[in-house]
């Protein structure tokens, strides 16, 4: 058997170069394994924290938000999400430079109901021209087929539109109501079945920085015409 293997196989690695001593190899393999395990735990710390029920200790953006506006991560976990966003005692997340964050899952909504979205924002760097963090915030609506609704706008920034939040302002709470009778960017389209929260921070300014926290999106008992803040 041995002779056949040797006759048709390319040269084994051992013949081409010096072999690592067995002890050294095992040490390297163990260290490599340890490094990868620790690295994986660090990279997936938010997911692990959620699995272990420790998510409150972590930044909300990493746990619940992604940068995708499409239907990825579309499990209907509305109740879980509401539970998460109702908690007001976790620390905020710091964002330096421009970023658009979306809530991770598509959240089912009733287009006949009204919802209030709110969040806290604290600018820590007023950016290049000292104009503060330029902020846009609102929701993106999706139809039954989980396709983004583009009319009148794909991003219904009905909570904040080009708001310049200055460092001197301190912590600011921004609120907006979305309803079927809301005006312009606060109106829920009749065919909306899902939504994602969308927040655009530090628009076009790599030096601006802001801390985002306490994001909530909760149903309102009665319809209020869409007015902001």
């Amino acid at each position, binding site marked *: *058997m041995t002779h*056949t293997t040797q*006759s*048709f*196989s*390319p*040269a*084994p*690695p*051992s*013949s*081409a*170069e010096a*072999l*690592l001593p*067995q002890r*050294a*190899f095992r040490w*390297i*393999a163990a260290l*490599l394994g340890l*490094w*990868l395990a620790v*690295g*994986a735990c660090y*990279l*997936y710390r938010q997911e692990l924290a959620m699995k272990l029920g420790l998510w409150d200790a972590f930044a909300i953006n990493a746990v619940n938000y992604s*940068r995708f506006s499409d239907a990825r991560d579309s499990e209907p976990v509305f109740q879980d999400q509401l539970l998460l966003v109702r908690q007001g005692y976790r620390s905020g997340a710091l964002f330096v*430079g*421009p*970023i*658009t964050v979306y809530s991770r899952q598509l959240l089912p909504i009733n287009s006949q109901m009204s919802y209030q979205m709110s969040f806290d924002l604290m600018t820590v760097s007023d950016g290049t021209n000292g104009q503060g963090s330029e902020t846009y915030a609102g929701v993106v609506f999706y*139809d039954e*087929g989980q*396709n983004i*609704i*583009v*009319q009148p706008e794909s991003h219904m920034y009905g909570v904040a539109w080009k708001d310049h939040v200055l460092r001197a302002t301190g912590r600011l709470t921004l609120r907006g109501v979305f309803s079927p009778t809301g005006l312009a960017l606060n109106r829920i389209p009749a*065919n909306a079945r899902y939504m994602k929260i969308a927040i*655009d921070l*530090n*628009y*076009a*300014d*790599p030096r601006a920085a802001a801390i985002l926290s306490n994001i909530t999106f909760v149903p309102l008992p009665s319809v209020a015409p869409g007015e902001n803040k």
Partner: protein
Amino acid sequence: MTLFHGFLAVAVFLLLIGFTWPIKGRIDVLSLTTLTVAKSMWLSWMVVFSSYWLNLGDVSAMVLLAVTLLTLWRLRQGGVADVWFSGYGLLLAIVLMGIGYALSPLEAIKPILDGQIVLSGWDVNASWNNWAMQLFENTYSPYIAAYPLFLPGLWSLIYKAQANPMVWVMTRLLLCAFPLILMIQVGSLAIARRPLAALLVFLSLWGIFLANPLLLIGLTDPIVMMLTLIAGVALYLAICSDEQEGPVDHYTLCAALFAGVGAITKQPGTLSAVIIGLGLLLVGIHHSKQLTWYLVRLLVLVLPVATFMLIFSTRPSLPTALGNLSFLMSLTSKASAGGGIYEHGWSYVVSMFGRFPLLLMLTLAALNLATPKRKLSQIGLLYLAGFGIAFTTYSNCCAYDERNGWFLIALLSMSAICGVSILEGAMMRELAPWRRFFGRLLRHDDLLARPRTFRSAQLQLLAIVLAVAVAGLLQMVVGESRYLEAEKNARRNIVWPTVNNLAYLNIDSLGKGLIITNYQFVSLLPDLEKRNRICPDIACVAAAIKQFPGSRVLIGPESFDYPTLRAALGPGDYLATEAKYGFSLTRGLTISDLPLNLATPLHP
């Protein structure tokens, strides 16, 4: 006979044409397969090049005849080369494929199994497939930028064999050859006792590549990614075959061939070709090769790019090789929302790999730094440097879309494979008890264990007979009408299916009218090929309505809109609207529906 001719053309241009390139010495069947496919792709490009200059039609039958005659002649001469294989080796390759198939999400294959059997996607149909159809008609005029032409060229050969450029099934299915080659290479690595390299390629293929639903739709980005990895693995195998001249020659030629065609598949392929060129130089110096050895490989590497640039230089108006690069850079800057472009590019890299695979690959690639004097580590460092250069370029010019950077996966994977090679020998030693265990299980079966040798001409004849037989069988079993019907059903769903469906709405009542739109893909939809008018502006729309009263207009947002016409129409003038892309279809319009300034006859 569309299916018969199409399938046979795929076999001819991906496998059989390579038989014309002689092989010498002794070679194993897996290496022979990859080498023959490499030669075939390279030679097929030369056929495309010749066809462009000589306005040739279908040459597949001629090539098949030539290959058959040559094979029969070689058979009489004694068969040329010895091809050996072992049952265990093949069994191992098949088992690995089975494991991959069982574990992988196979998102790349699912759409094909679901009936999406034709080329689809905006860029695919607007550019690559469009150029293939132009090459089919010998009317191709180089685009203003030097967009490589390998895949469109290959597709045009299929269209010529089918005598029909509107059946895109085989052109899509031939893309499956690329993951198949990687599967074969996983087997080669396993047989070469490189378990860690085999594992990494296995994970890249089944865990990253085949999990990508866009892998096989016709985009060139995933193909150049796979070609980069295939060429790299071939070079790696050449270095692994350190003491044996035959395999070194075969694998280095294979690497040069794949890198050569990769360079004309998409622009990033040139970077891979440069790395392969440098790698070949290292191998050649180590083996004290003669000048001819270098020249052959250099020629193989450079000729595809040189011939492509010759085609490109025939463009009458000022060609600019970099094309709309500045526009793409502005897109990238826009995509990063004015923020850090490298941070933005890196977020795409994390997304394309996944977090843990990226950590794994970077860690293993870093091992190259520990042993820079080893040949494989030097290759690994070349790939790592290539990854760095590619990432910088990608972040600056092309990170407006993740897919432009997919080749980075191949570059980093190659570096990781080279890096982990320092552990391969010791790993094999650790696996020795398992090998002894399996050896005891398998040793009773001598039939599998004994290496078998064939003459290469015998295998070539077998391949020719099989190709013709399978093509004939497919044609008989599927049948022409069923095949064309399935193709049409699939083509109805290209690019934006919901918009296509809108165009088909109550199509029977359209009469002699047309579908007028600026959504260019209407002209590719089955049964609408001659019932459409692509209009970039309202003057064109008005002229078409005057000429064909009762025509319907397919209006969409932005560049698909005709604001003047929209203003003249009321809500009742639309037959239907689709929400996904915001398109609407008007009822049949006549001259009286047009705004007054457009209703005036253009040519009284």
